């Protein structure tokens, strides 16, 4: 409305004031053309490199996934939500989310609407390169002028939309500049130091849109404009008196665009272009196989160096660990700094929190694990003592009666926490479940600790032996109390026809099926999400269902996928006892903020760690349940 009004009261006659370029070319477009050509070629080569380093199997998987409707739909959704809207950042830090979506979605829409505008108003210019189709939409306001007398309503609407979008982007850029000055204001304590290329790209990015505003304002009386550009145009006229200033600004605009594209591959802003590829690859279910090539390379370049992972990392409750954050690990990988890569790869707790909160979804712990593999996989090991197990344990020998039984695997760590085993035993009794105890006397490690240490080959051997034992038992349900075991059983064992359950899931099911009746106590409970159970296996709701039935379940400030690791994770190879204890304190502080009467967790490691630091009683999940089972009246 306003724009229509403005154009109505301000008839400008451009004839004779300025030359237009009928051949649709001007030298100032050159920097942009060079920049965009460079980035397109770079992208193409990069894409070929990444695809080349995938295994053949993975390549086919990726290609196929593009045509599976479900995955394709998810791709579209993720591309829109993650690349443009940045919903992940919105959820955690709304202001930061706004900043990102303003720049990304705003810029994207400027391009799309710009193209539409060109398509509608100057269709022939989209047809051939000779007509300058590439830069037409970009520099439309330079190459086309509209006689205000001919301005249609449709054009005005476009002018309005384009000005609005530009304002949207500019608001994002403004926030970005503000953030640089005071990153704390947006809720980030630590942020990364930019490299030279980062700076060049950053300052160009900052300059692009203000320059575009200036440039379009200078020509607004000729090409048309709206509520933003028109008033600026009058202002410039009042101050500068002539319109010839517009040439330098159009040059500057083009140079900034060109420079931005040239600096992009060497800067963190490469994430803008890499993220879509990462999304496609991730949705196709690809896995990291080499720490620097293929899928990992896509992840490395998709990292935006935003540094959100620095604040998220549980190790960073101690300042000295800041330098081991995921963002630096990825940065050194990108720079092929092997010494630092190996140093950092070993430090991580592998709790997965950085991956969970990463706006791009870079799974850096997984890359660290594969990096460890490059160093430790070749270490000599000898598990020949397991051979006899694999030979004697045969599924044919399984008793037929075993089919309905539950097979319980406590795992190494649970043997150091007899309370857990004892509670599981009572639970089986109370629910009348028929069960077998796989590792009561002797047991084989599940393989996860070896995987975490990078000894994948050794892990495979342990997995094989355990698998043989489980299959030979004839049981169709495998129950685990240790989430560390659970993760590897789910991901690496490939147990066909055997259901793998964590005891939180199992108990939730028993309660739902009415095999146990829970009594609601008055105790205020806070639940600690173990890393491997929550972020590792995505089990958040079952334990909460059960615990809210046995007591008053409180929320910790950081819970679910933001839960703070207890510090005793097997993922870290290097942390000593004192550092682990510090992290445990930090983790307990978070839980104690909910002011609970007791803390409940569902992992033997977390149980031990939290117990050692907690001022209130700490209970194992099964223990808390067993204490609150109503004695059934039917069974006696």
């Amino acid at each position, binding site marked *: 409305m306003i724009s229509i009004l403005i154009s109505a009261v301000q008839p400008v006659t451009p004839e004779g004031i300025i030359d237009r370029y009928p051949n649709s070319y001007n030298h100032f477009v050159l920097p942009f053309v060079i920049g965009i050509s460079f980035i397109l070629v770079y992208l193409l080569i990069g894409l070929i490199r990444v695809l080349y380093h995938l295994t053949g199997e993975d390549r086919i998987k990726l290609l196929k996934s593009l045509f599976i409707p479900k995955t394709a739909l998810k791709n579209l959704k993720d591309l829109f939500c993650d690349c443009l809207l940045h919903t992940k950042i919105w959820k955690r830090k709304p202001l930061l989310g706004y900043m990102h979506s303003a720049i990304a979605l705003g810029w994207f829409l400027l391009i799309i609407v710009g193209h539409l505008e060109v398509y509608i108003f100057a269709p022939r210019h989209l047809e051939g390169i000779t007509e300058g189709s590439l830069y037409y939409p970009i520099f439309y306001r330079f190459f086309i002028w509209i006689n205000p007398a001919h301005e249609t309503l449709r054009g005005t609407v476009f002018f309005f939309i384009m000005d609005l979008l530009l304002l949207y982007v500019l608001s994002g850029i403004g926030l970005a500049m503000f953030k640089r000055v005071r990153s704390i204001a947006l809720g980030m304590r630590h942020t990364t130091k930019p490299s030279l290329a980062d700076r060049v790209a950053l300052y160009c990015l900052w300059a692009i849109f203000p320059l575009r505003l200036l440039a379009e304002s200078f020509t607004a009386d000729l090409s048309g404009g709206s509520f933003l550009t028109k008033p600026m145009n009058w202002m410039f006229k009042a101050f500068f008196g002539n319109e010839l200033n517009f040439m330098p600004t159009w040059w500057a605009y083009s140079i900034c665009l060109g420079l931005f594209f040239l600096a992009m591959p060497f800067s963190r802003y490469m994430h803008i272009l890499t993220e879509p590829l990462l999304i496609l690859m991730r949705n196709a279910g690809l896995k990291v196989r080499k720490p620097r090539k293929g899928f990992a390379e896509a992840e490395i370049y998709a990292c935006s160096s935003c540094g959100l992972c620095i604040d998220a990392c549980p190790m960073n409750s101690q300042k000295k660990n800041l330098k081991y954050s995921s963002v630096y690990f990825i940065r050194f990988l990108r720079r092929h700094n092997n010494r630092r890569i190996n140093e950092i790869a070993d430090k991580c707790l592998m709790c997965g929190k950085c991956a969970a909160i990463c706006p791009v979804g870079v799974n850096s712990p997984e890359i660290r694990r594969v990096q460890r593999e490059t160093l430790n996989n070749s270490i000599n090991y000898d598990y020949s003592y397991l051979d006899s197990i694999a030979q004697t344990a045969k599924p044919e020998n399984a008793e037929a009666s075993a089919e309905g039984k539950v097979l319980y695997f406590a795992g190494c760590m649970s043997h150091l926490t*007899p*309370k857990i085993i004892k509670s599981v035993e009572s639970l089986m009794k109370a629910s009348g479940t028929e069960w077998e105890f796989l590792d009561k006397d002797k047991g084989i490690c599940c393989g996860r600790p070896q995987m975490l240490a990078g000894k994948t080959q050794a892990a495979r051997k342990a997995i094989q032996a355990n698998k043989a034992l489980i299959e030979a038992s004839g049981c169709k349900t495998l129950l685990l109390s240790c989430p560390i075991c659970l993760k590897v059983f789910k991901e690496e064992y490939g147990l066909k026809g055997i259901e793998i359950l964590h005891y939180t899931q199992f108990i939730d099911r028993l309660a739902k099926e009415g095999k146990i009746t829970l009594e609601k106590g008055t105790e205020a409970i806070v639940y600690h999400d173990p890393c491997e159970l929550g972020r590792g296996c995505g089990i958040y709701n079952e334990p909460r269902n059960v615990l809210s039935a046995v007591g008053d379940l409180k929320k910790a400030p950081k819970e679910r996928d933001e839960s703070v690791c207890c510090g005793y994770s097997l993922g870290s190879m290097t942390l000593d006892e004192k550092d682990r204890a510090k992290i445990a304190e930090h983790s307990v502080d978070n839980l104690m903020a909910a002011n609970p009467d007791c803390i409940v967790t569902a992992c033997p490691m977390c*149980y031990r760690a939290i117990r050692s630091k907690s001022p209130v009683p700490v209970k194992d999940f099964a223990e808390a349940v067993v204490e609150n089972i109503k004695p059934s009246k039917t069974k006696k």
Partner: protein
Amino acid sequence: MKNNILVIGGGPAGLEASANLKRLGYNVILIEKDKQLGGHLAKWDRLFPDGVSARQTLNALLEEVSGVNCFTETQLQSINVLDKSYNAILSNGITVLADAVLLASGFDLFKAEKKEEYGYGIYEGVITNADLEEAFREKKLPSKQPQAIGFVHCVGSRDEKAGNPACSKVCCATAVKQACEVKEVYPDADVYCFYMDLRMFGRHYEDLYLKAQKEFGIRFIRGRVSEVAETADGRLQVKAEDTLSSKPLRVSLDMLVLMAGMRPSESGKTVGRQLNLTTEEDGFFSSADNLLEIQRSKLPGFFYAGACTGAKTLPDTLHEARSAAIEIDRYIKEKFSEK
């Protein structure tokens, strides 16, 4: 005028120091948080190395303190440092203006349930040294003859994970003493002691060790117990390494006694917080000097005796109590007899 001395803690150290201070002519006020005086000594049955009765020993100490103002079930509510003395408000409402204060807050036994893998509080047969003494004292030992009994040394001592890297000094001798006593009650049971180092440093301690080997046939296994599980028939299965033969070892037991070590007492810590007393890394209070001024703190007129400055045997504690009395006497004379 008699000078007031406040003694915090009515265990052996507090009792012995009070008796001596009274003898030296001071007005002693002794406070004890529990109902009865005697501290851990009151809960023990017999004492190493000679097996004398703890009750008799305590009675002898108590006789000496007649005439001392003893307030049981009384704690220190607050304490302030004045110009020359201390102003203490007790939980029974009494205010004491003391010219010197002796802290004899002693130790708490390590909470054995913290060593999760030993199953204290989970398995019925797992008890602590204090539980066993109580059973002896109250004559409540299980009547059912156990076949095998184990003693685990260093529970919560020499263990960084348990937060106490130090040796608790008394557990080795206590374990050997208790092993002999248990064997006396159950002569047919096999008794094992799981130790890391046997620290039998005092007079007659080695004799005790020899007696345990020669007369009672107690098996000493050099290895720390790493975990305790339950067998199918409800017995305790203990895992350790017999480090002398370099083989992992397991044995089924009916009773397992955990030798809980010494930790600084909680009530002592509250006093420490009020006066900002410094502690060393092990959590016990730091003396002004670990050789020459063990009884003195960094505050003038504030003294220590007994296990509040680290694990000690009973005789050590009594020595310290006596020397604390002499130190306090010297301090008072220097400070208050001028003119």
